[in-house]
């Protein structure tokens, strides 16, 4: 296939993907999973959240418009060598990256730039966790959701499903669980609560103790917290993607 034809086809595929809908999440408060000393529940203002994660096709459009984010050109400060490594080329998705799958192998810097380009931003930890908190669900529904989440976290599937394929939650938002991990704006705020004056670096953050500190059904929250604290923002990983948010007007 000629390069021109390939580009035309890619453009066609991208154009076939409708712009992502955003769902309104009403405000509330979020109590961080592992509260620091004196840390209070965080008030969350109403915001809009993408209904599903950003797809390969959408991200390709972004790279096309902003070539500095192409695989061969991105500065190493902003994305490690795994960045878009599953794509066939700078502007070619190829067989390992279906257009409607969530884009992964993108760094936090890239996700931040993508959302900014659309006049949006990444959701904060408080916003993401609030949106994912299954309001109104019964205890059994929450327990069932928790089982599915843990099953995914324990063994992510090799092949990503298409974005938007899971049932919507109470806010109409899909794929928060069970598809990919997602970047949040304040990723670097996932600090293991260790006195920085000590040199021990994280050893005091024990999973068992942490779970005992709150209800056991929040174990998946603990896993997200631990994951965030161990992944640097320039990393590009197989099951790590993102979606965008916007403050409600």
């Amino acid at each position, binding site marked *: 296939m000629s390069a021109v034809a390939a580009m035309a086809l890619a453009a066609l595929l991208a154009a076939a993907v409708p712009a992502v809908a955003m769902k309104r999440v009403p405000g509330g408060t979020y109590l961080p999973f592992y509260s*620091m*000393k*004196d*840390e*209070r529940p965080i008030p969350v203002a109403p915001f809009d959240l993408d209904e599903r994660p950003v797809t390969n096709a959408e991200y390709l459009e972004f790279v096309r418009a902003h070539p500095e984010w192409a695989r*061969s*050109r*991105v*500065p*190493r*400060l902003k994305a490690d060598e795994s960045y878009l490594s599953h794509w066939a080329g700078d502007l070619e998705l190829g067989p390992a990256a279906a257009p409607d799958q969530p884009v992964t192998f993108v760094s*936090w*810097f890239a996700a*931040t730039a993508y959302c900014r380009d659309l006049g949006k*931003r990444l959701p904060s930890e408080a916003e993401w966790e609030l949106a994912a908190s299954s309001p109104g669900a019964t205890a059994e529904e929450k327990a069932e959701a928790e089982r599915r989440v843990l099953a995914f976290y324990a063994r992510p599937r090799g092949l990503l499903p298409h974005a938007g394929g899971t049932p919507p939650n109470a806010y109409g938002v899909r794929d928060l669980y069970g598809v990919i991990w997602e970047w949040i*704006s*304040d*990723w*670097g*705020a*996932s*600090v293991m*609560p260790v006195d*920085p*004056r*000590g*040199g021990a*670096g994280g050893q005091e953050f024990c999973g068992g103790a942490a779970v005992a500190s709150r209800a056991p059904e929040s174990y998946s929250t603990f896993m997200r917290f631990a994951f965030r*604290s161990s992944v*640097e*923002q*320039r990393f590009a990983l197989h099951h790590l993607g993102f979606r965008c948010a916007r403050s409600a007007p």
Partner: protein
Amino acid sequence: MSRSRLLRRVVVLALGAALVGSGCQPREGGSSGMSVWQLEGRWTRAGDGEIELAALRGKPALLLLFYSTCQSICPALVHDLQTIEQRLPPGTRAQLQFVLVTIDPEHDTVERLAAFAREKELDPERWTLLHGPPNQVQELAAAVGVRYRATGNGQFTHTARIVLLDRDGAEREHWDGLDRPLDPIVSAATELAGRS
């Protein structure tokens, strides 16, 4: 510095020397792609005016993310940097810059930072105190591996890290915590300044 870390540094230096010797240019995404000064956005330099980080290229830097109302570790870290400054050979001192970036831009206004600099007698010839919007602070912190979180009482928990950047702004080395000797930092900074 541990022995393995020292060894790694020696290897890196040797590798760097080999590259310079062979006339190898840093390619895109190479060492120049690691400059933290490439991050976009406008900052305000306390006591001066608006700048972009690119303006800080040219001299090696010791960089610290801090906040002025910190009651525990930041005062010690700033004091450490001042001690390092004093221990530098006089000829080297002018070849280095000290950059402090507030992680609490809401309370650390530009005026507050300027007052802090006067209070600590930080020489404006060498010291730059930066104030920027929260999203830019997040990006800069991410670029040098500093994590921080407001703890709800006006205080933050954060990585206690001094970062040494080369003249392009690429990280060469960093030191975490407070219980570490300052001489290795002085030596590393002196060596880097001497080669620029």
